[in-house]
């Protein structure tokens, strides 16, 4: 019985989950404020653009988007299995491809800012 390669996706899941646990509520709140018509300063175009233009902002946005996506991808794979969808291999490919695509798109978008 060979040792599994799950650690690679599990470490992304764990890192993303930890980051999401600490950061997601505050970040969601920022967008909720925007939805209520009181967008915080950082979400104004000029401020957010300046943030994303800075190396720290790029790192932060890439890290958050990528890790949230990989966390959600792996957890969704497990959850769909729990809901009775047993085609694990197919589900795994789909969710990880989406996470990878999202990661690549983040890099592309950030490179244009």
């Amino acid at each position, binding site marked *: 019985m060979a040792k599994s390669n799950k650690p690679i996706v599990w470490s992304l899941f764990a890192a993303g989950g930890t980051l999401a646990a600490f950061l997601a509520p505050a970040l969601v*709140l920022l967008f909720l404020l925007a939805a209520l018509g009181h967008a915080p300063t950082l979400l104004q175009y000029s401020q*957010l653009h300046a943030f994303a233009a800075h190396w720290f902002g790029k790192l932060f946005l890439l890290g958050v988007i990528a890790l949230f996506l990989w966390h959600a991808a792996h957890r969704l794979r497990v959850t769909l299995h729990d809901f009775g969808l047993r085609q694990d291999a197919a589900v795994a490919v789909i969710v990880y491809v989406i996470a990878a695509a999202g990661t690549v798109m983040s890099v592309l978008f*950030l490179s244009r800012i």
Partner: protein
Amino acid sequence: MSRRPYVREVSKTRWYFRHPRYLRYMSREITCIFIGAFALLLLCALGRLADGQAAYESFLAALQGPWGTFGLLVVLIFAVHNATSWFNVAPKAMPVQIGEDFLPGKFIVIAHYAVWIVVSLAVLFFAGAL
């Protein structure tokens, strides 16, 4: 004496209705749908940001209204549920042995909540929401 073991079937799609602890587990797991959705929202925002001021501002405008507000509220609830369920089990994966004894889990949990509050306030402050 003949043996004929009987295997009791368990529903693969409805097993979690059999006990509240399984429903609690599923509620924790489905937070990933909302974390993922929020990540995709951030990706959208980033894309619009790269497209210029008009594109980004129409994105922000699209968020306003009942759908955006309600949707983000639901995401917020699940994001908080993810955070609390994550912090509450954190000690299990990281036992801290000091001498013969282990640090009681509750200190690790409290430390996580404390950091969560500090980080959240820092984010809100830095974003100009406070």
